[in-house]
């Protein structure tokens, strides 16, 4: 046996993304254990990680963390390539699209809370459209839209607040060290 000539260089940024994605997967797993009154209504705690990554390392890193979380989380939960996986994927893609726009909002007026609310609404909007187009081809699914939107608003605000708090604390420790 000769040593394999293929070597993938791993950068510090790769390690950071892997670490953060692991944290997001952990939150997804914890959340999967929480019973919910309505399938699809859940806090989306892993999005706190996405928001932190977006604020500190930019959109591309956030997209990586979010994508890895969806794939790895679904494999761990036995949902990979099941309908739930595609719903999660659609939600993640639309959230990231919303975040790509939202983070260009003027920072003096709009913070992580706004990002989070917009991402949560985009997330649920995408999932409803996918469900309507593919899983339940009937307008009846839109009966759930107000409930989902209300949940997105509440959980989006809470997640955004937690992300804002964590970012603030991080800045404080950074400046204390400097």
């Amino acid at each position: 046996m000769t040593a394999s000539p293929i070597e993938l260089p791993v950068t510090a940024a790769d390690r950071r993304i892997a670490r953060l994605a692991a944290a997001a997967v952990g939150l997804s797993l914890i959340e999967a254990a929480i019973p919910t009154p309505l399938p699809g209504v859940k806090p989306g705690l892993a999005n706190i990680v996405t928001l932190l990554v977006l604020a500190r390392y930019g959109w591309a890193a956030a997209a990586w963390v979010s994508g890895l979380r969806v794939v790895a989380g679904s494999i761990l939960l036995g949902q990979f390539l099941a309908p739930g996986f595609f719903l999660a994927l659609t939600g993640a893609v639309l959230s990231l699209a919303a975040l790509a726009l939202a983070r260009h909002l003027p920072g003096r007026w709009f913070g992580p809370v706004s990002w989070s609310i917009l991402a949560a609404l985009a997330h649920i909007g995408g999932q409803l459209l996918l469900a309507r187009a593919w899983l339940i081809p009937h307008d009846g699914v839109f009966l759930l839209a107000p409930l989902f939107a209300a949940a997105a608003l509440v959980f989006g605000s809470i997640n955004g607040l937690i992300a804002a708090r964590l970012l603030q604390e991080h800045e404080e420790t950074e400046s204390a060290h400097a």
Partner: protein
Amino acid sequence: MAAELGRGARAWLALIRPGDWLLAGLGTVAVGFAFPHFWQGGLADRAIVRQDGRIFAQIDLKSRRRIEVAGPLGTTVIAVEPGRARVFSDPGPRQYCVRQGWLSRPGEIAICAPNRVSLQIAGRSRTYDSLAY
């Protein structure tokens, strides 16, 4: 203790920027409107009166008026008020459509079968009177 709680709440509130409040407020209003929009087939906006299956009149539910519809047994009187409508009187023997009272939600219908008159409330979007899977 209370002061500490107040400080904690203020620390959280300080994280919310003006635009965040605006967005959350707009979102709340939109969700408030989404409930009637998605759950009641929109708000009721007109009454459709049919005679012998054909549309006899479509009345805006903002108005207040009374219309008379002639049928094979006699005259059915429909009363319309802002936001609701009812069959006021009917020559039919059992008076079911009269006793149904005021109709105010889209999709509701009162049928005076003997006199071949019906009164239906309609909203912006069509609703179903039953769903089957």
